[in-house]
């Protein structure tokens, strides 16, 4: 008897075709389904192809309907719009400058106008920067203006006619690399409308307290990836009159490419130049920073639901995270945790650790802006937001890789280089973010999978903290590895070691030493060559918490003329964790950060002489 149903267990062409054949096998009318040349086989092919095509199409369509599975940018943008989320745009880099004006070209109390242009050339690129507000000239002596903020970009203008008969009236900004924070909008009813000429409309970020007379505009990203502007309906915001002209000015920017402009600025070799005849000299006080790319689709996928959950208020840690990421687009990674998790605990505070796209820490001004934004309208009364810098833990990787040279097909050195590059690629792709731990098993699998000739590997991590010393005065230092330190028993070999340095001892003479531990929780300073103890008690180390405290000491210099003192420790666990504001990273410029040692098991001498990182 013929089956009265088809099994639907796959959308694969051959499975569908087999299902159709199964069905025909039960009938007597057509028997040639199994012969490829038959007309029946041709029809089965077409039916199966059509079924598969439809199934694939439906699968793709449904995937694009949900934020978790959508791939196309237009789908993700459209869904995020439903959640009230506007993806962040590319943002301009901002530099701060002091300006000396030409003699007799200014009056104290007058203003340097908005959109005064400053030009800088760096790295073969010409960058234009603008002021975005008028700046008052306050001093008659140079510098005449100080702390002036200038933004990288190129000014653009668009104008549209507001047509009441047209439904929607959405005005699309043609450029994709527009910094939306620079958009300024005016709506003029006619040539004599002075108020319309001078009044700037505000961007609406919330529907709270918006009335029918508020001059606001709404901004969203359209399906093609362009930002578009639309207005209210005389209930939520003013609706422009029919025939009004909408003027839109904005800046397009190079984003991250302008970060760092101004770094080579010095007397006699200025980076910036202002308008000839007006500006005599420009001194950079803060190099250009904060330029960032537009938000990636991966980021939109993560942030849109969080922002929707936050409902524009900061209560939970994810609320803080999503609000900060949304308002300040130049931030690469944000970690938020309660002050009670700090050591010592800081009750009533919420700690916000931030890593910017460029550099390792954000400026104090940005920290204050973030705290102000959260305190002003988003936060909970009684909870104080505190922005903190990331705490970087550097990792060093030592791997002993056992392999069979008879099966390798390439030299030991080629294999070592390949493994090293894979490890660094893994570190580049996975580290430098908050809440990202480093798991040894992941790296070990990566190494084992490099080649069939690799039999196994013994990979170990070393943690490194970098202390910025004060060379001018006796100072105590403290750093936290935030991981337990390896110390199986008192009397175990030392697991703490610093770079060699010179210091002033108790008699005032300069000595050279390095920090180490006595395995009982006390830090000592040893002579790096002889190994003799120079200072019995130079601080403490807590093997359980990872906190290392160095007693007051006057450092004179660090070997290699480094500006930091590197202190290394062996972790107790196989993995390294990144709690709170810790970011795990590695020193790209230090080739010894990743050390791979190849051990050929086809050479008996190598097996006997090779050791991993064993401690006794």
């Amino acid at each position, binding site marked *: 008897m013929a089956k009265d149903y088809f099994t639907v267990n796959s959308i694969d062409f051959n499975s569908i075709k087999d299902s159709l054949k199964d069905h025909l096998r039960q009938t007597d009318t057509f028997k040639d389904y199994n012969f490829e040349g038959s007309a029946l086989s*041709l029809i089965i092919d077409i039916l199966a192809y059509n079924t598969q095509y439809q199934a694939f199409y439906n699968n793709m369509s449904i995937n694009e309907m949900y934020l978790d599975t959508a791939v196309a940018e237009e789908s993700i943008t459209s869904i995020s719009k439903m959640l009230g989320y506007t993806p962040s745009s590319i943002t301009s880099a901002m530099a701060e400058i002091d300006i000396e004006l030409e003699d007799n070209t200014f009056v104290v109390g007058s203003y340097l106008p908005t959109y005064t242009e400053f030009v800088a050339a760096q790295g073969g690129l010409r960058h234009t920067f603008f002021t975005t507000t008028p700046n008052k000239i306050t001093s008659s002596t140079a510098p005449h203006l100080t702390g002036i903020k200038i933004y990288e970009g190129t000014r653009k203008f668009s104008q549209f006619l507001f047509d009441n008969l047209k439904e929607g009236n959405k005005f699309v900004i043609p450029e994709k690399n527009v910094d939306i924070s620079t958009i300024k909008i005016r709506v003029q009813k006619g040539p004599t409308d002075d108020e319309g000429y001078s009044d700037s409309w505000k961007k609406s970020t919330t529907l709270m307290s918006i009335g029918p007379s508020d001059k606001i505009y709404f901004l969203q990203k359209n399906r093609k990836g362009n930002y578009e502007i639309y207005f209210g309906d005389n209930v939520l915001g003013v609706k422009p009159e029919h025939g009004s002209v909408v003027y839109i000015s904005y800046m397009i920017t190079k984003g991250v490419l302008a970060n760092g402009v101004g770094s080579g600025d010095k007397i006699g070799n200025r980076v910036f130049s202002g308008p000839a005849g007006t500006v005599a000299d420009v001194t950079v006080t803060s190099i250009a920073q904060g330029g960032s790319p537009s938000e990636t689709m991966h980021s939109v996928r993560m942030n849109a639901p969080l922002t929707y959950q936050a409902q524009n208020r900061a209560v939970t840690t994810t609320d803080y995270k999503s609000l900060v990421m949304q308002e300040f687009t130049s931030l690469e990674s944000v970690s938020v945790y309660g002050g009670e998790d700090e050591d010592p605990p800081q009750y009533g505070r919420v700690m916000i650790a931030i890593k910017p796209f460029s550099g390792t820490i954000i400026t104090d001004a940005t920290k204050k802006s973030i705290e102000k934004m959260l305190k002003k309208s988003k936060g909970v009364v009684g909870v104080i937001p505190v922005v903190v810098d990331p705490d970087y833990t550097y990792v060093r990787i030592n791997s002993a890789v056992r392999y069979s040279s008879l099966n390798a097909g390439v030299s030991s050195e080629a294999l070592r280089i390949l493994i090293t590059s894979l490890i660094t690629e893994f570190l580049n792709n996975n580290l430098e973010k908050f809440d990202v731990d480093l798991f040894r098993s992941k790296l070990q699998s990566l190494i084992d999978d490099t080649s069939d000739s690799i039999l196994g590997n013994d990979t170990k991590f070393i943690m490194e903290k970098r202390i910025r010393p004060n060379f001018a005065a006796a100072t105590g230092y403290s750093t936290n590895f935030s991981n337990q330190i390896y110390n199986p028993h008192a009397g175990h070999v030392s697991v703490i070691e610093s770079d060699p340095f010179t210091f002033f001892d108790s008699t005032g003479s300069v000595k050279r030493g390095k920090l180490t531990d006595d395995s009982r929780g006390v830090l000592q300073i040893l002579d790096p060559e002889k190994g003799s103890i120079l200072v019995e008690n130079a601080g403490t180390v807590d093997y359980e918490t990872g906190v290392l405290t160095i007693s007051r000491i006057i450092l004179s210099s660090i070997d290699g003329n480094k500006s930091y003192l590197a202190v290394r420790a062996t972790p107790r666990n196989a993995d390294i964790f990144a709690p709170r504001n810790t970011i795990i990273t590695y020193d790209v410029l230090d080739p010894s950060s990743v050390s791979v040692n190849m051990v050929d098991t086809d050479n008996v001498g190598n097996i006997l002489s090779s050791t991993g990182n064993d401690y006794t």
Partner: protein
Amino acid sequence: MARYTDFDLNMTRHPLTGDVPLVEDVVAIKRSVKNIVLTNYRERPFNIPFGANIRNQLFEPAEPFTAMTIRKAIIFAIEKFEPRVRILEVTVSDDVDRNEFKISIYFSIRHLNKDVGMDIQLSRVR
């Protein structure tokens, strides 16, 4: 009762029932052989090497070497895709005046014990 049944790819309606007519045994197999010979590679979905792929030979010079290539392709395809027949003879001759190749295929149908012959003309349509 017919051993092989297929339907008529011409899709002409049966004058009485109005249904697509069936073709059986010898006719069904001849149609199958013709389908194989006239199908080019990549015409059938997900079955790239199905067919004799001889249509592109029509743009080659009309000479014995081309005819020989076509003949070999036909024999290979029928042996591969039509297990119900055993090839007896395939001849390909060029008709220069008409710009076409004439193909004659003789085969024996295994389970019906019948020898069958069929002719196919290959010509450019434009």
